[in-house]
Protein backbone atom coordinates (compact mmCIF):
# COMPACT_ATOMS: atom_id res chain seq x y z
CA UNK A 1 0.00 0.00 0.00
CA UNK A 2 1.18 3.47 -0.82
CA UNK A 3 0.41 5.55 2.29
CA UNK A 4 1.16 8.83 0.50
CA UNK A 5 -1.44 8.01 -2.15
CA UNK A 6 -4.01 7.13 0.54
CA UNK A 7 -3.23 10.37 2.40
CA UNK A 8 -3.68 12.28 -0.81
CA UNK A 9 -7.12 10.74 -1.45
CA UNK A 10 -8.13 11.20 2.18
CA UNK A 11 -7.10 14.86 2.13
CA UNK A 12 -9.13 15.33 -1.02
CA UNK A 13 -12.23 13.67 0.45
CA UNK A 14 -11.98 15.47 3.81
CA UNK A 15 -11.55 18.85 2.16
CA UNK A 16 -14.74 18.25 0.22
CA UNK A 17 -16.77 16.70 3.03
CA UNK A 18 -15.86 19.37 5.55
CA UNK A 19 -17.03 22.12 3.29
CA UNK A 20 -19.67 23.97 5.31
CA UNK A 21 -21.67 24.92 2.26
CA UNK A 22 -22.81 21.44 1.28
CA UNK A 23 -26.33 20.08 1.22
CA UNK A 24 -25.27 16.43 1.13
CA UNK A 25 -21.93 14.99 2.22
CA UNK A 26 -21.79 11.20 2.16
CA UNK A 27 -19.05 8.58 2.09
CA UNK A 28 -19.45 4.84 2.52
CA UNK A 29 -20.39 1.59 0.86
CA UNK A 30 -22.75 2.20 -2.02
CA UNK A 31 -25.78 -0.11 -1.99
CA UNK A 32 -29.42 -0.02 -2.91
CA UNK A 33 -30.28 0.90 0.68
CA UNK A 34 -27.60 3.61 0.82
CA UNK A 35 -28.96 5.18 -2.38
CA UNK A 36 -32.47 5.11 -0.99
CA UNK A 37 -31.36 6.84 2.23
CA UNK A 38 -29.35 9.48 0.36
CA UNK A 39 -32.33 10.25 -1.90
CA UNK A 40 -34.66 10.58 1.08
CA UNK A 41 -32.23 13.00 2.75
CA UNK A 42 -31.77 14.87 -0.52
CA UNK A 43 -35.52 15.26 -1.01
CA UNK A 44 -35.86 16.80 2.44
CA UNK A 45 -32.86 19.08 2.03
CA UNK A 46 -33.90 20.31 -1.41
CA UNK A 47 -37.38 21.19 -0.16
CA UNK A 48 -35.83 23.41 2.51
CA UNK A 49 -33.63 25.23 -0.01
CA UNK A 50 -35.05 28.43 -1.46
CA UNK A 51 -34.63 27.33 -5.07
CA UNK A 52 -36.87 27.04 -8.10
CA UNK A 53 -38.85 23.88 -8.84
CA UNK A 54 -36.80 23.46 -11.98
CA UNK A 55 -33.46 23.50 -10.16
CA UNK A 56 -34.81 21.17 -7.48
CA UNK A 57 -36.05 18.65 -10.04
CA UNK A 58 -32.85 18.87 -12.05
CA UNK A 59 -30.67 18.35 -8.97
CA UNK A 60 -32.71 15.32 -7.93
CA UNK A 61 -32.68 13.82 -11.44
CA UNK A 62 -28.92 14.22 -11.86
CA UNK A 63 -28.33 12.83 -8.36
CA UNK A 64 -30.34 9.70 -9.20
CA UNK A 65 -28.26 9.02 -12.32
CA UNK A 66 -24.96 9.73 -10.57
CA UNK A 67 -25.80 7.48 -7.62
CA UNK A 68 -26.86 4.68 -9.93
CA UNK A 69 -23.69 5.08 -11.98
CA UNK A 70 -21.78 4.61 -8.72
CA UNK A 71 -23.87 1.54 -7.89
CA UNK A 72 -23.25 -0.10 -11.28
CA UNK A 73 -19.63 0.88 -11.90
CA UNK A 74 -18.01 1.04 -8.48
CA UNK A 75 -15.62 -1.86 -7.83
CA UNK A 76 -14.34 -3.24 -4.53
CA UNK A 77 -10.62 -2.89 -3.83
CA UNK A 78 -8.33 -5.84 -2.96
CA UNK A 79 -8.33 -7.21 0.60
CA UNK A 80 -5.35 -5.11 1.69
CA UNK A 81 -7.49 -1.94 1.37
CA UNK A 82 -10.70 -3.29 2.90
CA UNK A 83 -10.13 -1.81 6.37
CA UNK A 84 -9.82 1.70 4.88
CA UNK A 85 -12.13 1.45 1.88
CA UNK A 86 -14.55 -1.47 2.38
CA UNK A 87 -16.80 -2.94 -0.29
CA UNK A 88 -17.95 -0.75 -3.15
CA UNK A 89 -16.63 2.39 -1.53
CA UNK A 90 -17.80 5.73 -2.86
CA UNK A 91 -18.37 9.37 -2.03
CA UNK A 92 -21.28 11.61 -3.01
CA UNK A 93 -21.72 15.23 -2.10
CA UNK A 94 -23.41 18.38 -3.30
CA UNK A 95 -21.85 21.75 -2.63
CA UNK A 96 -23.61 25.06 -2.82
CA UNK A 97 -21.73 27.23 -5.34
CA UNK A 98 -24.04 30.21 -4.98
CA UNK A 99 -27.76 30.68 -4.44
CA UNK A 100 -28.61 29.37 -7.92
CA UNK A 101 -25.94 26.72 -8.51
CA UNK A 102 -24.74 23.44 -7.06
CA UNK A 103 -21.68 21.33 -7.69
CA UNK A 104 -22.35 17.62 -7.40
CA UNK A 105 -19.32 15.38 -6.95
CA UNK A 106 -18.99 11.61 -6.97
CA UNK A 107 -15.91 9.53 -6.30
CA UNK A 108 -15.21 5.83 -6.67
CA UNK A 109 -12.35 3.46 -7.35
CA UNK A 110 -11.74 2.14 -10.84
CA UNK A 111 -9.18 -0.09 -12.50
CA UNK A 112 -6.24 1.69 -14.11
CA UNK A 113 -7.18 0.70 -17.72
CA UNK A 114 -10.51 2.48 -17.21
CA UNK A 115 -8.78 5.83 -16.69
CA UNK A 116 -8.20 6.36 -20.38
CA UNK A 117 -11.63 5.18 -21.54
CA UNK A 118 -13.45 7.26 -18.90
CA UNK A 119 -11.44 10.37 -19.84
CA UNK A 120 -12.25 9.84 -23.50
CA UNK A 121 -15.94 9.30 -22.76
CA UNK A 122 -16.24 12.50 -20.74
CA UNK A 123 -14.11 14.53 -23.17
CA UNK A 124 -16.39 13.36 -25.98
CA UNK A 125 -19.52 14.38 -24.06
CA UNK A 126 -17.94 17.78 -23.40
CA UNK A 127 -17.37 18.43 -27.10
CA UNK A 128 -21.04 17.86 -27.98
CA UNK A 129 -23.77 20.48 -28.13
CA UNK A 130 -27.05 19.95 -26.28
CA UNK A 131 -28.68 18.94 -29.55
CA UNK A 132 -25.87 16.43 -30.30
CA UNK A 133 -26.17 14.97 -26.80
CA UNK A 134 -29.90 14.57 -27.23
CA UNK A 135 -29.43 12.75 -30.53
CA UNK A 136 -26.70 10.55 -29.06
CA UNK A 137 -28.92 9.71 -26.08
CA UNK A 138 -31.81 8.79 -28.36
CA UNK A 139 -29.54 6.73 -30.62
CA UNK A 140 -28.06 4.69 -27.77
CA UNK A 141 -31.47 4.33 -26.16
CA UNK A 142 -32.94 2.96 -29.36
CA UNK A 143 -30.05 0.57 -30.06
CA UNK A 144 -29.22 -0.59 -26.56
CA UNK A 145 -30.39 -4.06 -25.62
CA UNK A 146 -33.09 -4.11 -22.98
CA UNK A 147 -30.90 -6.37 -20.84
CA UNK A 148 -28.12 -3.77 -20.62
CA UNK A 149 -27.83 -2.50 -17.07
CA UNK A 150 -27.44 1.11 -18.04
CA UNK A 151 -24.30 0.43 -20.06
CA UNK A 152 -23.32 2.26 -23.21
CA UNK A 153 -22.77 5.38 -21.16
CA UNK A 154 -26.46 6.30 -21.23
CA UNK A 155 -26.40 7.44 -17.59
CA UNK A 156 -23.37 9.69 -18.09
CA UNK A 157 -24.78 11.18 -21.31
CA UNK A 158 -28.00 11.87 -19.44
CA UNK A 159 -26.01 13.64 -16.72
CA UNK A 160 -24.19 15.74 -19.35
CA UNK A 161 -27.48 16.56 -21.04
CA UNK A 162 -29.31 17.52 -17.89
CA UNK A 163 -26.41 19.53 -16.48
CA UNK A 164 -25.87 21.58 -19.63
CA UNK A 165 -22.36 22.38 -18.34
CA UNK A 166 -19.01 20.78 -19.11
CA UNK A 167 -18.28 17.83 -16.86
CA UNK A 168 -14.97 17.96 -15.02
CA UNK A 169 -13.04 15.03 -13.61
CA UNK A 170 -9.82 13.92 -12.05
CA UNK A 171 -8.10 10.65 -11.24
CA UNK A 172 -6.16 10.25 -8.00
CA UNK A 173 -3.71 7.37 -8.07
CA UNK A 174 -4.07 4.77 -5.32
CA UNK A 175 -1.51 2.35 -6.75
CA UNK A 176 -0.50 1.10 -10.19
CA UNK A 177 -3.76 -0.85 -10.59
CA UNK A 178 -6.38 1.41 -8.98
CA UNK A 179 -7.40 5.04 -9.25
CA UNK A 180 -9.94 7.16 -7.41
CA UNK A 181 -12.18 8.65 -10.08
CA UNK A 182 -13.81 11.98 -9.25
CA UNK A 183 -16.59 13.47 -11.36
CA UNK A 184 -17.91 17.02 -10.91
CA UNK A 185 -21.28 18.09 -12.30
CA UNK A 186 -22.40 21.71 -12.19
CA UNK A 187 -26.15 22.17 -11.81
CA UNK A 188 -27.93 25.43 -12.53
CA UNK A 189 -31.52 26.26 -13.42
CA UNK A 190 -30.71 26.81 -17.11
Amino acid at each position, binding site marked *: MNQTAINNIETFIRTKLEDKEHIIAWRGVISSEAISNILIELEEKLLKEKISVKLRKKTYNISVECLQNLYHHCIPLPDAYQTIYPGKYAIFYINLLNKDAYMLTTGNFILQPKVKSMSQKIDKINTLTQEDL*KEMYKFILNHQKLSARGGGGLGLIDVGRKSGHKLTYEFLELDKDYYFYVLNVKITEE
Partner: protein
Amino acid sequence: MDVLKIEPTRHKAGVLLDPDNHYIEFTGFSLPEDAMAFFLPIINWLYEYSNHCKEYIAQGVHLKVNFKLSYYNSASYRAFLEMFHIFAKMQREGLKVTINWYYEAMDSSMQEGGKDLSDIAKIDINLIEIPEKHP
Protein backbone atom coordinates in the same frame (compact mmCIF):
# COMPACT_ATOMS: atom_id res chain seq x y z
CA MET B 1 -54.80 -12.90 -18.53
CA ASP B 2 -54.40 -11.81 -14.92
CA VAL B 3 -54.22 -8.34 -13.47
CA LEU B 4 -50.65 -7.38 -12.59
CA LYS B 5 -50.51 -4.92 -9.76
CA ILE B 6 -47.39 -3.62 -8.00
CA GLU B 7 -47.82 -1.30 -5.04
CA PRO B 8 -45.60 1.79 -5.20
CA THR B 9 -42.70 2.21 -2.80
CA ARG B 10 -40.73 5.38 -2.15
CA HIS B 11 -38.42 4.77 -5.11
CA LYS B 12 -40.25 2.20 -7.20
CA ALA B 13 -43.26 2.86 -9.37
CA GLY B 14 -46.78 1.72 -8.72
CA VAL B 15 -48.01 -0.39 -11.63
CA LEU B 16 -51.44 -1.53 -12.71
CA LEU B 17 -51.93 -3.71 -15.78
CA ASP B 18 -55.63 -4.53 -16.04
CA PRO B 19 -56.60 -6.69 -19.04
CA ASP B 20 -60.33 -6.67 -18.23
CA ASN B 21 -60.63 -2.89 -18.30
CA HIS B 22 -57.81 -2.50 -20.85
CA TYR B 23 -56.15 -0.03 -18.54
CA ILE B 24 -52.45 0.46 -17.78
CA GLU B 25 -51.00 2.86 -15.25
CA PHE B 26 -47.59 3.80 -13.86
CA THR B 27 -47.32 6.16 -10.88
CA GLY B 28 -44.74 7.67 -8.55
CA PHE B 29 -40.95 7.36 -8.58
CA SER B 30 -39.44 4.88 -11.01
CA LEU B 31 -35.84 4.57 -9.83
CA PRO B 32 -35.02 0.84 -9.58
CA GLU B 33 -31.28 0.10 -9.73
CA ASP B 34 -32.03 -3.23 -11.37
CA ALA B 35 -34.57 -2.05 -13.91
CA MET B 36 -34.61 -5.38 -15.74
CA ALA B 37 -35.77 -7.31 -12.70
CA PHE B 38 -38.53 -4.78 -12.15
CA PHE B 39 -39.72 -4.28 -15.72
CA LEU B 40 -39.28 -7.69 -17.31
CA PRO B 41 -42.53 -9.15 -15.89
CA ILE B 42 -44.32 -5.98 -17.04
CA ILE B 43 -42.92 -6.18 -20.56
CA ASN B 44 -43.71 -9.89 -20.77
CA TRP B 45 -47.27 -9.11 -19.69
CA LEU B 46 -47.53 -6.52 -22.45
CA TYR B 47 -46.27 -8.96 -25.07
CA GLU B 48 -48.86 -11.47 -23.93
CA TYR B 49 -51.55 -8.77 -24.08
CA SER B 50 -50.45 -7.87 -27.60
CA ASN B 51 -50.88 -11.52 -28.64
CA HIS B 52 -54.63 -10.96 -28.15
CA CYS B 53 -54.59 -7.82 -30.29
CA LYS B 54 -56.74 -9.18 -33.11
CA GLU B 55 -59.55 -10.28 -30.80
CA TYR B 56 -59.42 -6.95 -28.95
CA ILE B 57 -59.71 -5.09 -32.27
CA ALA B 58 -62.75 -7.24 -33.17
CA GLN B 59 -64.28 -6.37 -29.78
CA GLY B 60 -63.69 -2.63 -30.35
CA VAL B 61 -61.39 -2.38 -27.34
CA HIS B 62 -59.82 0.97 -26.43
CA LEU B 63 -56.54 0.57 -24.51
CA LYS B 64 -55.82 3.46 -22.16
CA VAL B 65 -52.33 4.02 -20.75
CA ASN B 66 -51.44 6.58 -18.10
CA PHE B 67 -47.90 7.53 -17.12
CA LYS B 68 -48.19 9.60 -13.94
CA LEU B 69 -44.59 9.67 -12.79
CA SER B 70 -42.68 12.14 -10.65
CA TYR B 71 -39.21 10.86 -11.56
CA TYR B 72 -37.66 8.08 -13.59
CA ASN B 73 -34.08 6.92 -14.11
CA SER B 74 -32.52 6.26 -17.50
CA ALA B 75 -32.78 2.47 -17.00
CA SER B 76 -36.55 2.81 -16.51
CA TYR B 77 -36.72 5.05 -19.53
CA ARG B 78 -35.20 2.29 -21.68
CA ALA B 79 -37.98 -0.03 -20.45
CA PHE B 80 -40.62 2.61 -21.25
CA LEU B 81 -39.33 2.75 -24.81
CA GLU B 82 -39.79 -1.01 -25.12
CA MET B 83 -43.38 -0.58 -23.93
CA PHE B 84 -43.99 2.29 -26.35
CA HIS B 85 -42.83 0.07 -29.22
CA ILE B 86 -45.39 -2.55 -28.16
CA PHE B 87 -48.17 0.07 -27.94
CA ALA B 88 -47.19 1.45 -31.36
CA LYS B 89 -47.24 -2.02 -32.93
CA MET B 90 -50.73 -2.71 -31.56
CA GLN B 91 -51.89 0.66 -32.84
CA ARG B 92 -50.50 -0.06 -36.31
CA GLU B 93 -52.41 -3.35 -36.28
CA GLY B 94 -55.61 -1.39 -35.69
CA LEU B 95 -56.12 -1.27 -31.91
CA LYS B 96 -57.30 2.03 -30.48
CA VAL B 97 -54.56 3.11 -28.03
CA THR B 98 -54.44 6.31 -25.99
CA ILE B 99 -51.31 7.20 -24.02
CA ASN B 100 -51.47 10.03 -21.51
CA TRP B 101 -48.10 11.27 -20.25
CA TYR B 102 -48.48 13.54 -17.24
CA TYR B 103 -45.84 16.07 -16.20
CA GLU B 104 -45.77 18.61 -13.43
CA ALA B 105 -45.68 22.30 -14.31
CA MET B 106 -42.06 23.47 -14.72
CA ASP B 107 -40.82 19.90 -15.18
CA SER B 108 -39.55 20.30 -18.73
CA SER B 109 -37.43 17.15 -18.39
CA MET B 110 -40.50 14.96 -17.80
CA GLN B 111 -42.38 16.74 -20.60
CA GLU B 112 -39.51 16.28 -23.03
CA GLY B 113 -39.07 12.65 -21.94
CA GLY B 114 -42.61 11.85 -23.05
CA LYS B 115 -42.25 13.70 -26.31
CA ASP B 116 -39.01 11.88 -27.17
CA LEU B 117 -40.56 8.46 -26.53
CA SER B 118 -43.46 9.43 -28.77
CA ASP B 119 -41.04 10.52 -31.53
CA ILE B 120 -38.81 7.45 -31.33
CA ALA B 121 -41.63 4.89 -31.15
CA LYS B 122 -43.74 6.86 -33.65
CA ILE B 123 -46.92 6.91 -31.62
CA ASP B 124 -48.97 9.95 -30.68
CA ILE B 125 -49.37 10.71 -26.99
CA ASN B 126 -51.21 13.31 -24.95
CA LEU B 127 -48.85 15.47 -22.91
CA ILE B 128 -50.86 16.64 -19.91
CA GLU B 129 -49.62 19.32 -17.52
CA ILE B 130 -50.63 18.96 -13.88
CA PRO B 131 -49.90 21.21 -10.87
CA GLU B 132 -46.55 20.82 -9.15
CA LYS B 133 -46.24 18.20 -6.41
CA HIS B 134 -43.42 17.65 -3.94
CA PRO B 135 -40.53 17.16 -4.15
